[in-house]
């Protein structure tokens, strides 16, 4: 023992795991894009899931198909449709820019829109299933006790669907984090603005010296996804305990 460490510390080895500023940027951008996409899409998804689960109306099938379209269409097609509609010269895009000053084109908001649209079917599906699992007669009971329709929904049906909503949210968040095809088609691949983790990883694999960067990004993406799954599992268990009472 002469004071030297048993394993020599190689500085290159330490640097290997250290994130570069551009990679930090991509990580934060991804989290921002996915969170905003989820926050905006979730309430809408709950509404659509409730409509699909509880009501028969003309256009029921069309709405259902429309919701699921991004799941079956090539993502590039979805991205291109978004570009046509929400781009600088698209009908919705120019309207929003002139009236509200919101611009989606080549902007992180566009990335969030693309992520939200792609994640939407994954949000709606489990939420719809859990609405269908809640007995609609419970709302009748709530109304007979004086609760208005909205109150009955908020106090009875919604709490009972929380596990499904949580499941949908996790799935949607993961999808939004990993969205690639629609994003790159709609808002391109601009560092700092629209280059999310997936896009940064793609960029790294296209560069001859990008192997280490690609490896680091892969590890980050895995850690984030893993953490989300664990968190959702813990939360779901807690919810089941609170809602069921008889199953544990």
């Amino acid at each position, binding site marked *: 023992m002469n004071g030297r460490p048993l394993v020599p510390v190689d500085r290159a080895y330490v640097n290997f795991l250290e994130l570069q500023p551009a990679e930090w940027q991509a990580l934060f951008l991804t989290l921002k894009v996915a969170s905003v996409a989820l926050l905006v899409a979730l309430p809408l998804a709950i509404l659509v899931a409730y409509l699909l689960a509880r009501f028969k109306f003309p256009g029921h099938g069309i709405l259902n198909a429309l919701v699921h379209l991004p799941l079956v269409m090539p993502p590039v097609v979805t991205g291109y449709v978004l570009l046509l509609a929400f781009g600088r010269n698209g009908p919705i895009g120019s309207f929003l820019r002139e009236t509200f000053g919101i611009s989606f084109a080549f902007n992180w908001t566009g990335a969030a829109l693309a992520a939200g649209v792609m994640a939407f079917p994954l949000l709606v599906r489990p939420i719809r299933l859990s609405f269908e699992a809640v007995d609609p007669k419970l709302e009748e009971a709530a109304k007979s006790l004086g609760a208005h*329709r909205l109150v009955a929904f908020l106090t009875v049906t919604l709490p009972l669907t929380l596990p499904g909503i949580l499941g949908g949210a996790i799935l949607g968040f993961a999808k939004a984090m990993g969205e690639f095809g629609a994003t790159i088609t709609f808002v391109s691949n601009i560092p700092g603005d629209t280059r999310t983790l997936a896009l940064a990883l793609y960029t790294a694999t296209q560069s001859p010296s990008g192997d280490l960067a690609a490896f680091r990004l892969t590890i980050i993406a895995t850690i984030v996804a893993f953490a989300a799954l664990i968190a959702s599992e813990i939360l779901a268990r807690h919810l089941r305990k609170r809602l069921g009472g008889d199953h544990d």
Partner: protein
Amino acid sequence: MIEVDITGHVGRMDLQAQFSSEGGVTSLFGQSGAGKTSLTNMIAGLIQPETGQISVNGETLFDADKNINLPVQARRIGHVFQDARLFPHLSVKSNLTYARWAGRRQQGRALNEVVELLGLEDLLERKPGTLSGGEKQRVAIGRALLSDPRLLIMDEPLANLDQARRNDILPYLDRLCADAGIPILYVSHSIEEVARLSQTLVILSDGKTPAFGPVADMLARTDLGRATGRHEAGALLEGTVKWEDPEWGLTHVDIGGEVMQIPDLPAEPGEAIRLRIRARDVSLALTPPEGLSIRNTLSGTIRSISRETGPYAEILCAVGDQLIRARITRASVVDLQLSIGKQVTVLIKSVAIDRRQRASINSLAQWQYPRR
């Protein structure tokens, strides 16, 4: 005070219901598929009738002509569903107080009063999923009572319970019906529950209401055999407990001039009770028989004889100021030369009554119930 006169249809069934009741407990009686739940759902506002009116205590809840149709949440009708429909994510206490915090019904009974009435003290912190069927129904009744209702609808609250659970819950129903303070509409296909609990009986058959009126009158009617079920048919007697003979374990009950001896009746002297005597437990004789073990030999007068197509005949006899139904064979009617106005001796075997009472409440030939 309930007044219903509506038509409508649910699925393939046409419903045409007309009845009124002065209050107290009104039973809606009919076989499965007669339209009982459809009718109560119309009264509660869950299904809209096509024509007619519904009013409770003088307030119109539905009037097709005047375009009045109060929504469910505005009708103030406490609804106890067959399947309880407790909110599974809420504790029993939150279920009970739901109308307070979600329905904004602040008036009405106090929570602890209802908790005591239904014996819910030990259940308050539990979740509905951990309750037995009978406990669930008691909570559902409490929850409806606490919504400050002007009418309480109970849609076959015992239908999904086994016999033991029914026996658990019936005493609570007795107390509730005696002291609800609001009219109750009790839906049942069990003539025993109906006779035990109600003052007014509405008969529902194939979506129509062929008859309604005071429960004793209705049960004495022999023309409603198909609707009331022939096998279980019987008359309702009201009487007062005179004294209990401890030596023989027999309770003497005055039923308007005549005295009956009922074994093992848990009632105090002076208490007003109801007895249901099934027609098939009653025999008739022309003269008071001697050397007979039957203890209840009452003298009566034949009021009506209805011959049916089968081997049986239904005889209605006036005993004191009340009516007793007897089912005997048509052959006996001819042999004894029975006719309206003839004096007969009515024989009721005490022992049959007693054994059935102990066996199960549902197959009781008679029971006692505090009269209001």
